[in-house]
C-alpha cells in the first residue's frame, strides 16, 4: 500500500504525520520524501549511510560546425530554450523541458544529448532499519516533476517482496508537483488545520485529487486552534476524518527540537497507531468497493 500525505496549504503538518506514521507502522515500510524543493522528512527520521545519486535531464548540446542555421529546432521548441538570432543559434538549457524534439528535427545532426543536473536522490536507512529516500532539487532548477520521476523510479526499484508499504511526504500545493507525488498512491491523506486558510486549501486539494478516484481521508492538525468548519466540510463531502492532533505548545516545541510526534508520549503514539489502522481500513474498504462493483 502506498500512502501519500498531502495538504494544499504548506506547513499544516505533512512531515509530522509522515514521520509519525512511519515510526508506528507495523510492517516493513519505505519512507519517501517527494517534496524535492524543500525536503524535511530526513530531519526527523535521520537516515544514516546515505548514498547519493545524481539525477539529470537530457538537454540539447550544439555542434556549431554542423549547424546550417536552418532554424527548425528553434521553430519547434515550445519552451524558448532555442533561439535563432541572426547568424547565431543560442541554447538556453535552463528553459529546456527535455522533450527531445530539437534532436529529432535537426536534419544535420548538429544537436546531441547533453545533461542538465536536476538534483539528487538520497537513500539512507534509519537507526531502526527503515529505508528513507529523499529527492533534493538543485537550487536554481525550476522544474521539480522530472526529479520526482527519478525518485518514483528508485522507489519502485526498492519496492518488492520486502517493502509493500510506502509512505510519501508530498509537496504542498495542487499543481504539477503535488499531482505527480500522489499519482502512485493507494490512499491520500489530506493534512489540514482548522483555520480559514486551512479549509480553503483543503477544498482545493480535494478538488484537484478527486478525479484520481483514490480513497482520501483528513487529518486535522492544531485542532482547537481556530474554528470548526473543517468537520462540516468533511461530512458534506463524505471525507472521513481520521485523526485530530490537538493544538498544544509542547507539540510545537517537540517539533522545533526535531522530535517525531508519535514519540512524544503514549497518547500521541496511540493517536498515530489508530490513524495507521484507519488508513488501512480505508484502503480495504476501497478495494472491497472495487471488487463488488
Amino acid at each position, binding site marked *: 500500500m502506498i500512502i501519500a500525505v498531502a495538504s*494544499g*496549504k*504548506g*506547513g*499544516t503538518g505533512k*512531515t509530522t504525520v509522515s514521520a509519525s506514521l512511519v515510526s508506528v507502522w507495523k510492517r516493513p515500510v519505505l519512507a519517501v520524501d517527494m517534496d524535492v*524543493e*524543500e525536503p*524535511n522528512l530526513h*530531519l*526527523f527520521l535521520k537516515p544514516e549511510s546515505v548514498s547519493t545519486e545524481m539525477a539529470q535531464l537530457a538537454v540539447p548540446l550544439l555542434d556549431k560546425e554542423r549547424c546550417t542555421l536552418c532554424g527548425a529546432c528553434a521553430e*519547434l521548441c*515550445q*519552451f524558448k530554450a532555442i533561439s535563432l538570432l541572426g547568424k547565431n543559434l543560442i541554447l*538556453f538549457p*535552463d*528553459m529546456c*523541458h*527535455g*522533450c*527531445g*524534439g530539437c534532436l*529529432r*528535427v535537426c536534419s544535420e545532426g548538429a544537436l546531441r544529448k547533453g545533461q542538465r543536473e536536476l538534483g539528487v536522490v538520497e537513500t539512507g536507512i534509519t537507526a531502526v532499519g527503515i529505508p528513507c529516500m529523499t529527492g533534493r*532539487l538543485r*537550487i*536554481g*532548477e*525550476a*522544474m*521539480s*516533476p522530472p526529479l520526482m520521476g527519478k525518485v518514483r523510479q528508485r522507489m519502485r526499484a526498492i519496492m518488492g517482496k520486502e517493502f509493500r508499504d510506502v509512505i510519501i511526504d508530498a*509537496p*504542498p*500545493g*495542487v*499543481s*504539477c*508537483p*503535488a*499531482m505527480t507525488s500522489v499519482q502512485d498512491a493507494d490512499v491520500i491523506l489530506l493534512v489540514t488545520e482548522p*483555520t*480559514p*486558510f486551512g479549509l*480553503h*486549501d483543503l477544498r*482545493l*486539494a480535494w*478538488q*484537484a485529487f478527486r478525479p484520481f478516484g483514490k480513497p482520501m481521508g483528513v487529518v486535522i492538525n492544531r485542532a482547537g*486552534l*481556530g*474554528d470548526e468548519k473543517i468537520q462540516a466540510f468533511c461530512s458534506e463531502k463524505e471525507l472521513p476524518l481520521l485523526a485530530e492532533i490537538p493544538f498544544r*505548545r509542547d507539540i*510545537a*516545541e517537540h*517539533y*522545533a*527540537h*526535531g522530535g517525531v510526534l508519535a514519540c512524544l508520549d503514549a497518547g500521541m503514539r496511540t493517536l498515530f497507531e489508530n490513524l495507521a489502522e484507519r488508513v488501512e481500513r480505508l484502503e480495504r474498504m476501497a478495494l472491497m468497493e472495487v471488487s463488488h462493483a
Partner: protein
Amino acid sequence: MRELVVISGKGGTGKTSLTAAFAHLARNAVLCDLDVDAPDLHLIAEPSIQRSGPFLSGHVAEIDPEACKGCGACEGVCAYGAIRKVDGRFVVDAPHCEGCKVCVVSCPEGAINFPDRLCGTWYESETRFGPMVHALLDPGLENSGKLVTLLKAKAREQASKFGLDLILSDGAPGIGCPVISSLSQASLVLLVTEPTPSGLHDLERVVELCRHFRIRSTVLINKADLSPEYQTAIHAFCDAKDIPVVGHLPHDPAVTEAMVRGQAVTEGIDTPFGAQVRRIWLNLQPLLEAPSSSFSKEIPS
C-alpha cells in the same frame, strides 16, 4: 517602483498573514498574490473583482480520432508517456502532456491538433487596502511560473494606473518554478522562517536561491520563542551570509484569531503581536529604499 516579495521555503511560516498586515499598514501598495497554487490572501483582503480573464499558457495535444490511422508514431516520440492506446486508438492523457509539439510534427496523417491550454483565471480587484491582483490556477495544472509572471506585470500596470510606488507580493512555498518567477525585479525579498529544523533547512535553500539570482533578502523569525537553540542557529546562519534579520515575532494565537475574524493581524483589536508587526514594518522601510538589485541571470519561466 519597489516590490517586496514575501517567501519562506517552508510553508505555513506566516507569509500570508504578514503580507496582509503589511498591506493594512502600507496603505499605498498594490497587493499581489503569487501563490497561485493555493492562494489565501483574498480570504483576508476580501477583494471585489473588477476585471478577470482566462490564463492561457502553452498548448495541449489532441488526437483527432477520425484522422488517426493508429500507426503509433506519436506514442513512440512522446517523452512524457502521455499518449496511450485505448481500444485500438491513440489518445492524449492531457494532464501528462507537456505541450512540446513533438507528436504533432511526427504524425504522418496530420491528425494531432494543438490548441491553447486554459490553465486558470486572473483577477484585478479592489480591496480595503488598495488594488489587488490575484489568480487561481485550475487544479492540477502547471505553468504556475508563467501565471506568476503575468500577475507581476499586471501589478505593475495597476501601480502605474493608481500612482502607487509599492507592490506587496505574497509568494509560494518551495524553491521551484513559481518562486523563481516571483523573484524577478524584486527590490527586496522577505524570508519568513521559524526556529525549527525544517525552518532553518528550508531557509538555507531560499537564501541560496536569492543569491543565485542576485536578489537582496532579509529574514523575519516568526514563532521565535519555540526554540532558543534554533533561533540562535538562524542568527548565526544570517550573520555568516551577511543577511539582516529584520525582526522576531512570538508564537501567538493572535495570528489565527485575526484570520478567523477575516482581518489582518494589525487591524481591529490592538494586540502586542500587532504592535510588533508595526515595528517590523518600520524596520523594513530603509531596506526597501535601498537601490534595487539588478539581474544577471536569466530567470526561467
